[in-house]
């Protein structure tokens, strides 16, 4: 039990510290690197919660694909233009106060959470395979949302291409 708490603490420090690094660092490239650290910490927490397939998805989609897209978009811009910006808005104090309010609000909601934990950690895999359980639910109960997700991805890529055309 204590080993679980220690591992959780390390991963939580990775995830939250990486997120904090995104919003305080000045250089956007370093912010992308902090983002990778945060996503790796989140993936470790997902492994602790028996969501192995989702952890792999997190590493491939977020820490791989999205970070590469952001970094390549950064490479197409002038370094001095994006690095010499002022760091925070003029009303940053109000924004930070608002974020603190959101945090306290959700902490109150999450601390009042009372759920029945008799099924804790059960039903998450079929015959030892998490992928099999996810596929079972995905293709039996959520087939129409799955198809709609494919259409959403296709239209988003069309929109991205159309937005960056020469004359809009």
């Amino acid at each position, binding site marked *: 039990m204590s080993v679980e708490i220690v591992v959780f603490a390390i991963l939580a420090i990775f995830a939250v510290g990486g997120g904090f690094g995104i919003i305080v660092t000045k250089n956007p490239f370093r912010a992308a690197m902090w983002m990778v650290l945060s996503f790796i910490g989140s993936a470790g927490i997902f492994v602790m919660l028996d*969501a192995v397939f989702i952890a792999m998805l997190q590493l491939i989609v977020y820490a791989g694909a999205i970070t590469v897209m952001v970094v390549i978009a950064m490479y197409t811009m002038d370094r001095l233009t994006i690095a010499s910006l002022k760091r925070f808005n003029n009303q940053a104090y109000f924004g930070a106060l608002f974020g603190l309010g959101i945090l306290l609000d959700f902490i109150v909601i999450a601390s009042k959470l009372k759920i029945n934990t008799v099924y804790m950690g059960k039903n998450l895999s079929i015959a030892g395979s998490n992928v099999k359980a996810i596929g079972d639910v995905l293709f039996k109960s959520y087939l129409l949302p799955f198809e709609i997700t494919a259409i959403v991805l296709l239209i988003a890529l069309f929109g991205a291409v159309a937005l960056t055309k020469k004359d809009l």
Partner: protein
Amino acid sequence: MLAAYMFVSVLLFAIGATGAMIRRNFLIVLMSLELMINGAGMALIVMSYYIGNVSGQVMFLFVAAVAASETAVGLAIVAMMYKNKKSVDINDFTTLRK
């Protein structure tokens, strides 16, 4: 232990919301949005574990797909704005306000 997992998820969401509100660089605002999506997804995974139902993980799959398409469109908007204005400062993006 449930409270600790939920606390991490809430903290990720709040940090992302704060970053989206206080930063001036559009690229970092997009990264903060990713952080908010990740926090919300972590709440889905935590509930999926404690309730004992795999549907939350399926929901995270949809969330990840929507996040990827959101990043593609957001980066296209950043590229277009940079091409027109030579800047990624969100305070310069006020063409709709006039």
